[in-house]
């Protein structure tokens, strides 16, 4: 779960990391008022989860009240679905720093990254000038010891009071990382102000989805998803991605579903949605098919090869879903695994033609979709 900037900054501020003074505005009027309260110049920042907000024009520096109002109206009307603006004081910046903490799957440690050049895409920098990125590996059982913060500060060329501030921010950032079960915490940029203080210009916090159960109060609302269907699927615990093609996938297994997606694209087809109803969801066929039908697909393609998810149970769910939802589009089932024989019987009884080869099923789906069924 990726938090919005204002949420991440709230977490950071509570941990003692300095953030700019700000208000969250839910409409243009509130944004204008907040801007006037904060004073000019100030910054209007669209609270959307996409990256590259600056380049997309979703962050605006405004110098007076009319400009603030105009910018706010524009932003709320943007096609990127802006529902909240963070109105923030403009900071007099000397330079920018990059700080983040993420995980290193090979070393089984956390990694604290720092770069004296903030505001840039760290991955780009990693590719072009890796020597500018400094790292400290931190074992979770050892924790983030002060000497590591000092090492990073020295590498960044910070000394004296700035080094102390940076060390305190790194320590607080580590606490945020651990306490929030984060995949990533990032301050990019961390401003060095003209008055010699450090303040978080942006805030990113990705909470590990598998840890959400113990992150009290964290629940992803509608504005964390790019479609109603994705939001509804998430509430059911059904992995779902929204696309705008012709074929709805209703498959089991993350790897297999991904490969079916690959094969459809290879065959020149397009995907309406990615959906997994395998694993713990294999009894949710009705709900899964409902989600697919919302996309008005040309074909529903069902591919499974189950282990825990028994083929016969899935087939039963599918025939049940067809009976209830009466989909008008063709359904192509390719259901293998435990209980396969029984599954085949049930599917045939429901008037479907079971296939046993994934590539064949994909080809048929693409052909049907292209054939312009309906």
């Amino acid at each position, binding site marked *: 779960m990726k938090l919005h900037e204002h949420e991440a900054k709230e977490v950071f501020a509570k941990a003692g990391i300095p953030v700019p003074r700000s208000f969250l505005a839910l409409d243009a009027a509130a944004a204008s008022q907040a801007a006037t309260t904060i004073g000019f110049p100030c910054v209007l920042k669209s609270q959307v989860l996409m990256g590259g907000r600056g380049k997309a024009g979703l962050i605006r520096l405004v110098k007076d009240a009319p400009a603030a109002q105009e910018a706010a109206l524009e932003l709320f009307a943007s096609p990127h679905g802006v529902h909240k603006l963070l109105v923030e004081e403009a900071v007099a910046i000397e330079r920018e720093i990059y700080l983040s903490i993420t*995980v290193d799957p090979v070393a*089984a440690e*956390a990694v604290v990254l720092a770069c004296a050049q903030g505001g840039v895409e760290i991955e*780009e920098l990693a590719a072009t000038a890796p020597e500018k990125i400094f790292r400290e590996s931190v074992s*979770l059982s050892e924790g983030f010891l002060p000497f590591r913060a000092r090492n990073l500060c020295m590498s960044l060329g910070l000394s004296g009071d700035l080094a102390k501030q940076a060390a305190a921010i790194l320590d607080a950032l580590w606490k945020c990382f651990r306490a929030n079960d984060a995949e990533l915490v990032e301050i990019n940029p961390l401003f060095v102000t003209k008055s010699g203080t450090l303040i978080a210009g942006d805030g990113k916090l990705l909470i590990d989805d598998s840890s959400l159960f113990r992150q009290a109060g964290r629940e992803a609302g509608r504005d964390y998803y790019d479609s109603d269907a994705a939001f509804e699927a998430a509430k059911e615990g059904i992995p779902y991605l929204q696309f705008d093609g012709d074929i709805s996938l209703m498959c089991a297994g993350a790897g297999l579903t991904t490969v079916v997606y690959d094969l459809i694209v290879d065959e020149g087809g397009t995907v309406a949605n990615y959906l997994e109803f395998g694993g713990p969801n294999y009894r949710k066929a009705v709900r899964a098919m409902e989600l697919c039908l919302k996309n008005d697909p040309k074909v529903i393609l069902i591919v499974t090869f189950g*282990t825990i998810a028994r083929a016969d149970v899935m087939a039963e769910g599918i025939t049940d879903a067809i009976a209830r939802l009466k989909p008008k589009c063709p359904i192509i089932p390719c259901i293998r*695994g435990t209980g396969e024989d029984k599954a085949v019987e049930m599917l045939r009884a429901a008037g479907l033609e079971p296939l046993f080869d994934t590539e064949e099923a994909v080809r048929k789906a693409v052909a049907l979709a292209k054939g312009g069924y309906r």
Partner: protein
Amino acid sequence: MSVFIDRDDTILIQGITGSEGSFWTRHMIELGTTVVVGVTPGKEGQSVEGIPVYHSVRRAVAAHPANAAMIFVPPRFTKDAVFEALDSGIRKIVTIAEGIPLHECLEIRAAARDRGARVVGGNTSGVISPGRAMMGMFPYWIERVYKPGRIGIMTRSGSLTNEVTAMVVAAGFGVSSLIGVGGDSVPGTRFAELLPDFQADTGTDAVVIIGELGGTMEEEVAEAMEARRFNKPLVAFLGGRNAPKGRRMGHAGAIVTGGKGTVEGKTATLRKAGALVAARPREVGSLLFELLGRNPGSKA
């Protein structure tokens, strides 16, 4: 000979009385696996498929020594279960749960490394050496997938493994040992760490890896091949070639960030190291045939 488990391994099952635990315990035994004891706190004295159940790992192994643990407990209790097994000296562990908290995955992998143990998983179907032993949940009874043979398989997936393995068998081969390292972003064991075992295994002629976008596991395999630490024939199949950038599709570990972890990049790296990379599941079989130059038959 096989990789990771064989019939002489003595298996303890944590969470044996649960529905998954008891169901797969039966199948492990049926396949020939030496399951010796089970654990479910509070259920000492019961038995599952004739296997005695104890309150704790310590009490279980005191009565029935085991060298491997198969863990069927929910994700949020997995770390505790793994550490409990490690605490009793068990150094071979398979844990299947999907959804282990990320930081706990780090702790599990670090603890295993520090103790010289190997933890396979989570988010996996487990490990199987068809015809010999199994720690996990494989429909071994489907002969067109789990035929014994001389091809080693490592995989990040579940259902996709059945799909690809079926193609290996369809091409006339069989499986020596199949190890599901799992689909998490921080699995306990990584592909490259198992290569020395497959290299040493006289029952394995070639290895298939079933990988996908995200992470660096496939690149580590290529590195081991470049360094000549592994030099048996290797065929890779990688999912997610067409997956949209920057969105997580499928497994937790399956995401491309900052241009790293693309299937394109992995394919190039593996090919440079001498691996063959299949574009489709079916091609895995034909590439193996090409590599081995013969159909070795089905007997291990």
